[in-house]
Every structure is written in structure tokens, then in C-alpha cells.
């Protein structure tokens, strides 16, 4: 190639880092001694630099946070799976759900405070359970667990069971927790 000039494509590929190793070594040997190709390479480099400047001049000067938030909102509206996880709940249903969560938290706190007891695990009977209102009356036990807890007697009122709340004291109960982690039903033992 000593007597042949570099092609335009070879010069441009060199500027863009796209020359194969074999072609690069040939190019480098030639360009060292060829003033004409050096001039052409300089000219291509100048055009490249001008194009970079032109591209930079098209940059968005606005902060990207708004566009990002807009995309996140749009994705939330177009995710069918997420939409299905937004059931319409009335205030009353939400209140019942909140009460059930209170039951569960109190029960878990009680379990944590007490020394671990060996809980007998006979085949559980699911009679006598009161469905918590937001559980869609689904008492199917598949995949769920039954937690034995102690609750303040006032918890009876939250479940709609008449009780002498003023009498104080605690009441034993079992809470059926579904595979999804939500309390589904409660059964008082005394």
C-alpha cells in the first residue's frame, strides 16, 4: 500500500475506531509517510468534530425528571397486572381491612413477646371461623397457616362479637392467614 493512498472509508473507519487490526497496521504504516492522506485525515476529523458540536447543540436543556415521572405514570396505567391489583374498595371495606391488620399485628406482637411454645398441629378444623369482611368470604385453607394469638378483649368488638370490653383481660383466638399473607378469618377460643 506504500504507493496507494488510503480510501475515504479507511480514513473514516480509523477516525471511528472501526478498522480491523490487520487493516489498522497497514493504515498506520502508510499514514506516517503520506502527507496527502494526513491532510485528508485531518479534514475528516474536522468534519467529525463539527458534527459532534452540531449534535451537542440539539441537547435538551430541560431537567429530565418530568419526562421520567411522566413515563412512570404512563407505565402504571398500562400495566394490566398492576391494574388488577387495585380493587375498588369502599371506605367500610377498608376499615374492616384495617381492623384485620390490627388483629394480625397484635397477634404477632403477642407471639414475639411470649416464649416459643410448641403449638400442637393437629389437622386443623376450619369450623367456627368468622370471615374477615375484605377476604371475600374465601375460607379455603390452601397454602395458608393458622396462628394462635392472644388479643385484648376489645378485639371481639372489632370482629362484631358482643363482649364485655370493659371487663378487660385477654382472649385467645386463631387467625387464618392466607398464602398471600392477608388475614382471612378469625376464631375466638373462649
Amino acid at each position, binding site marked *: 500500500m506504500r504507493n496507494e493512498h488510503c480510501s475515504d472509508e479507511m480514513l473514516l473507519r480509523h477516525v471511528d475506531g472501526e478498522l480491523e487490526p490487520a487493516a489498522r497496521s497497514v493504515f498506520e504504516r502508510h499514514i506516517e509517510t503520506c502527507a496527502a492522506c494526513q491532510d485528508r485525515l485531518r479534514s475528516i476529523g474536522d*468534519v467529525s468534530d463539527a*458534527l459532534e458540536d452540531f449534535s451537542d*447543540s440539539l*441537547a435538551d436543556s430541560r431537567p429530565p425528571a418530568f419526562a*421520567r415521572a411522566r413515563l412512570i405514570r404512563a407505565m402504571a396505567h398500562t400495566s394490566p*397486572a398492576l391494574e388488577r391489583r387495585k380493587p375498588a374498595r369502599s371506605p367500610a371495606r377498608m376499615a374492616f381491612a384495617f381492623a384485620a391488620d390490627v388483629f394480625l399485628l397484635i397477634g404477632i406482637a403477642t407471639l414475639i413477646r411470649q416464649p416459643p411454645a410448641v403449638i400442637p398441629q393437629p389437622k386443623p378444623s376450619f369450623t367456627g371461623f368468622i370471615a374477615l369482611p375484605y377476604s371475600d368470604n374465601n375460607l379455603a385453607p390452601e397454602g395458608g397457616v393458622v396462628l394462635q394469638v392472644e388479643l385484648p378483649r376489645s378485639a371481639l368488638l372489632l370482629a362484631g362479637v358482643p363482649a364485655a370490653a370493659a371487663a378487660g383481660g385477654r382472649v385467645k383466638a386463631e387467625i387464618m392467614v392466607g398464602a398471600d399473607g392477608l388475614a382471612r378469618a378469625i376464631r375466638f377460643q373462649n
Partner: protein
Amino acid sequence: MGVSLLDRETRDVLGAEDEVIRLFDDSRAPLFRYLRWIGSSTEEADDAIQEAFLRLHAHLLAGGERQNLRAWVFRVAGNLVRDERKSGRRRFSRPLESEQHDRHSWADPAAGPEQRVLAGESERRLEVAIRRLPPDQQNCLALRSQGFRYREIAEILGVGTTTVADLLRRAVRKLSTELV
């Protein structure tokens, strides 16, 4: 052993959203410049970018191919702009000349008035020369300026790598002739 409280469907949805946002953060700036280069206004580029990333989200949720998603989103956004242009609706594109107020001059602000005038004239000549190029050459130059390799440009435009090299060669040769 960690136990996830989320079911598989929810994990897939959240995983797709994370992937889209990660790519959005990495690619929005060069994608915006690319769309502006091929003729979109600021607002039209915003809309095309939004639409392209929503399509990416749907693509991921449908279990679509996850290789080289950056090229995927550039291809979709570019096609949106081109399709709108062909349809005549021009929601995603309109002539760049009408958007001069959105552009930043690359003239050095510290330069004197004479240098700024000369730099402004160079900008104008370059832009006119770019606009005279065929669209496929403009596209290649625009993608090259966003840092894409020849094989990536080829993938985005649906042509061969040799074609990309040839389009770029002709574009740069034409520009270097006109800007002398």
C-alpha cells in the same frame, strides 16, 4: 433462603418497569438528540420517546427479546418519527429550521463578536449541508454522533454494516467538500 412476598406476575411487571427506567435514564439524552437531528421538534421528540419506551414496556411484559434494547428503542422511536412524517400528520416531526429557538449555539460565549458571527455562519452552513444529504445518510450521521458502532447503526436501520460504512463515507465526503 430469601422468600419473596410477591407473586411471579408482579415480579415480572416490576422487573420490566425497572428495566425500562434504567434504559430511559441511560438513553433519553442521546435519543432526544437523535430525534431532533432527524427532524422532530422538542415536544414531538418527547412524545416519540414516551411512546417508544411504553412500547418497550409492553414488549418486555410480553416476554420479548431482551438483547440490545438500546438499539431497539432507537429503532422504534426513529420509525415513529418517520411513519408520522410519511402519514403527513407530523405529530413527531417537523422541519428543524422552524425550531431554531430550541437550539444551543456551539459558538464560544467568551469569544468576541466577530468570532461569534463567524461561528454562527459555520453552524448555519453545516446545518444546511446536513439537510441536503439524503435521509439515510443523515440517519447514519445522527446515530454515529450518539456513539453507536457501525454494526449497531446497521441493526437500528435494518441494513448491513457495509452499507452503513458506505453511507457514512459519502456523507462525510460531501460535507467536507461543502464546508471547505
